[in-house]
């Protein structure tokens, strides 16, 4: 029931748990809204959506949504989601993950999910820092950024997640920031429609830890920084690496139709055993 005074996305949320625990101006809420908008545009049945998440701020999102969800161990949401998808390939499985979850501890699960081209939609909210545990440097923190574990600035090279997943073989890869809400919801729509591993990286603001350590104390400062420093992929392709230093390349990286893993597996079962696999419904067969 949509009531007159409520946000258009409130009908998908568990109202008794609001307001959510995210800090004022956190990007997670924006990603949640854009996901709902993308879902409406893709005309996905909300009752058929399953959200899977690991550990972290962004992984608390499924707890606020009125759909089936799994809150799993740190870094393993893609493994759980793969199992879920193979158990019942009709589900729309969406993974919400942070950068520490998907890139650091679950890096291997991420690339192998992409390699297999499982039909999952992975939304990685990349805030470039470990926000929940106190602002430690993560594998995606830009070079020279500060954190509690990098008082002199991070000197490691960061992961480029969108390029990593493209190289691992995903069939849809896009990257946007939270300041590009409309483009982001369009990408989420395409990711939900795509049969195969769809990866949407969202560069998000963490004003509490990343912003405070890097002289961008308010969420607005961070969003202005993201808006001013982002370059579309098409333009970035014509620029060299020196010009691109410190910039965020946004846009669609990969969009191709490829063989999908669960379909492939079910076809193999049918070919070898002569009947369709219906493992999920066997318990209800006599009903």
């Amino acid at each position: 029931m949509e009531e007159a005074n409520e946000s258009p996305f409130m009908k998908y949320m568990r109202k008794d748990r609001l307001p959510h625990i995210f800090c004022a101006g956190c990007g997670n809420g924006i990603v949640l809204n854009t996901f709902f908008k993308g879902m409406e545009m893709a005309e996905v049945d909300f009752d058929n959506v399953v959200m899977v998440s690991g550990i972290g701020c962004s992984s608390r999102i499924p707890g606020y949504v009125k759909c089936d969800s799994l809150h799993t161990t740190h870094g393993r949401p893609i493994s759980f989601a793969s199992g879920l998808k193979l158990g019942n390939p009709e589900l729309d499985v969406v993974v919400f993950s942070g950068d520490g979850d998907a890139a650091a501890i679950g890096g291997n699960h991420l690339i192998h999910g992409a390699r297999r081209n499982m039909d999952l939609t992975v939304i990685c909210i990349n805030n470039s820092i470990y926000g929940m545990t106190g602002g430690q440097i993560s594998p995606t923190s830009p070079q020279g950024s500060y954190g509690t574990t990098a008082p002199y600035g991070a000197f490691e090279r960061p992961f480029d997640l969108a390029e990593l997943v493209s190289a691992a073989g995903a069939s849809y890869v896009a990257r946007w920031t939270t300041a590009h809400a409309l483009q982001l919801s369009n990408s989420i729509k395409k990711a939900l429609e795509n049969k195969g591993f769809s990866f949407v990286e969202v560069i998000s603001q963490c004003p509490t830890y990343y912003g405070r350590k890097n002289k961008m104390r308010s969420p607005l400062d961070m969003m202005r920084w993201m808006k001013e420093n982002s370059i579309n992929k098409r333009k970035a392709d014509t620029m060299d690496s020196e010009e691109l230093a410190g910039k965020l390349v946004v846009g669609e990286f990969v969009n191709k139709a490829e063989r999908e893993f669960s379909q492939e597996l079910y076809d193999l079962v049918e070919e070898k055993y002569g009947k369709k696999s219906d493992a999920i419904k066997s318990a209800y067969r006599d009903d």
Partner: protein
Amino acid sequence: MIKLDPNLCKGCSICTEFCPKGVYEDSKTPDKKGVYVPIPKNQEKCTKCNLCALMCPDQAIKVDENDE
């Protein structure tokens, strides 16, 4: 009509910054929770693009399609 839920708003001012028409204005006085809830002051300028409702991280904004 723009409706803003003061129980959900955390005062991040993203709506004030990103509204293309400058409908919102920052409040000068905090409410009882200490949150500076923005005021949709220039509602006649609103084109109902719904960008504020999409970008509100706290799902606090509702833009009514039909006027009064």
